[in-house]
């Protein structure tokens, strides 16, 4: 390895610094730990925080999966996967079950995660109170004092204006009865999966220089009102390729005459269901037996 890049791109001192932040985050679930975020060879907003957390977690034995909006084959996912193939020479996979480290943007895989897996989220804005209270000094104090009335003001405004809680992604959660946390822009359909999972969940925000974590089997509750309870919503359709009625769907416009199809946003989930023989409304017709 001596003539190569350092394993997983970052130098050992940096990885050590990031691991300390991760350990602190795990010790205080939901608390945003500041860390000295480095320049990465990609623009802010492309997952610089997630990449640093992944780099600090990777070992040569790991098998990495990278998804973007659930898909393994989009630009962001492909470039980050290639990046770690080159700099860490780790094995990669597209199958959720085989991966030990999964870096994700905006989704949690449909397949339940298992013990020993690490899910790394890319986070654009880690502060859930940011758009309500612009001062960082004040939001920190609000977290310290558990002063979270303002979060409900946002949900109140949602109901007053739209008749229901219209926040559909980055839906605020309370972790282990203490810190209110932004779960990164995952759809609120995925919120229930945050709670009580056997996998370790790490969140990295590169530009904002924050790391936070949900350790395995931590209680994560989505905030709501008694008379407007939290609902994990999705498009009311079944996948047009694999026929699954319970997975999160992407809407794809197929022509300019109003044609559309709904497909699973989790490509691995959809592909493995199709391989197992499930068919949807628009699946290619098979040869008659």
């Amino acid at each position, binding site marked *: 390895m001596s003539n190569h890049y350092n394993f997983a791109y970052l130098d050992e001192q940096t990885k050590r610094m990031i691991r300390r932040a991760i350990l602190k985050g795990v010790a205080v679930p939901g608390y945003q730990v500041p860390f000295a975020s480095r320049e990465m060879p990609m623009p802010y907003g492309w997952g610089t925080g997630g990449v640093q957390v992944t780099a600090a977690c990777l070992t040569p034995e790991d098998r990495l999966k990278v998804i973007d909006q659930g898909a393994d084959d989009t630009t962001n996912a492909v470039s980050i996967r290639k990046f770690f193939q080159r700099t860490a020479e780790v094995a990669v996979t597209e199958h959720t079950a085989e991966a030990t480290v999964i870096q994700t943007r905006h989704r949690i895989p449909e397949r339940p995660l298992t013990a020993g897996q690490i899910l790394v989220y890319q986070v654009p804005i880690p502060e859930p109170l940011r758009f309500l209270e612009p001062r960082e000094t004040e939001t920190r104090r609000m977290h310290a*004092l558990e002063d979270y009335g303002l979060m*409900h003001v946002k949900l109140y405004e949602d109901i007053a*204006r739209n008749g229901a809680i219209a926040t559909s992604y980055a839906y605020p959660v309370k972790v282990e009865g203490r810190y209110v946390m932004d779960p990164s822009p995952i759809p609120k359909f995925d919120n229930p999966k945050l709670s009580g999972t056997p996998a370790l969940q790490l969140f990295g925000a590169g530009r904002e220089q924050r790391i936070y974590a949900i350790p395995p089997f931590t209680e994560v509750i989505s905030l709501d009102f008694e008379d407007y309870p939290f609902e994990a919503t999705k498009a009311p359709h079944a996948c047009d390729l694999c026929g699954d009625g319970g997975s999160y769907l992407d809407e794809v416009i197929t022509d300019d005459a109003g044609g559309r199809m709904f497909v699973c946003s989790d490509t691995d989930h959809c592909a493995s269901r199709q391989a197992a023989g499930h068919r949807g409304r628009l699946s290619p017709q098979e040869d008659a037996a």
Partner: protein
Amino acid sequence: MTRDTPLLSVQDITKTYGGRIGCADVSFDLWPGEVMGIVGESGSGKSTLLSCLAGHLTPDTGRVVFDTRSEGPRDVLAMSEPERRMLARTDWAFVHQNPRDGLRMGVSAGGNVGERLMAVGARHYGRIRDEAIDWLGRVEIAADRIDDRPRQFSGGMQQRLQIARNLVTGPRLVFMDEPTGGLDVSVQARLLDLLRGLVRQMGLSAVIVTHDLAVVRLLADRLMVMKGGQVIEQGLTDQVLDDPQHAYTQLLVSSVLQV
């Protein structure tokens, strides 16, 4: 029924800004249901004093003892930050001179009124909304404006909304910093009328800072006159205004324009 401890007992409050005096050695007791007016010219230290009392500034010396519901008299300045914040959103209220300082301008009127309720744990949308509508009615804002933002309100309405937002949790002590500043006289008159009604009806105690003698004449039971950071005269409002003893108070009273 009658209590023998004052609601708020202020003892020797001094606040200096470097070498300059903000206010010096101010002491008074405020009894339940009493309204105390503090008047003085600009720079006389009245706003500094109010900020010290309300916990926005830390005074250099002195004690502010508040008679809490659960634990009796306690020194507010020695409380921990969470306790003080809890107090500030339950038993206390602060009405700013400029409604923009006291309201969230990007949040609807209903959300503004409901914030304090949600901060103390209300989690039922329907009940929060009913309470907000009730309070908008009490401050004479039409119920159909509940989803409008304060930006769309006139200055007088904004000030009334700020009062509703502050009184919704049923506080026992209200601090007001020039509540009628920046409003025209007819709107001022209506606001004063409203305030007087609410104060009497809810049995509120209040500390009102103003430079407008008409405001204290209407609202305040007792009056304190400040100049250069010192209290130079205090007594019953009518007594101080009708028979001023100190030269500065005489000047102040005689400076009011008679129409």
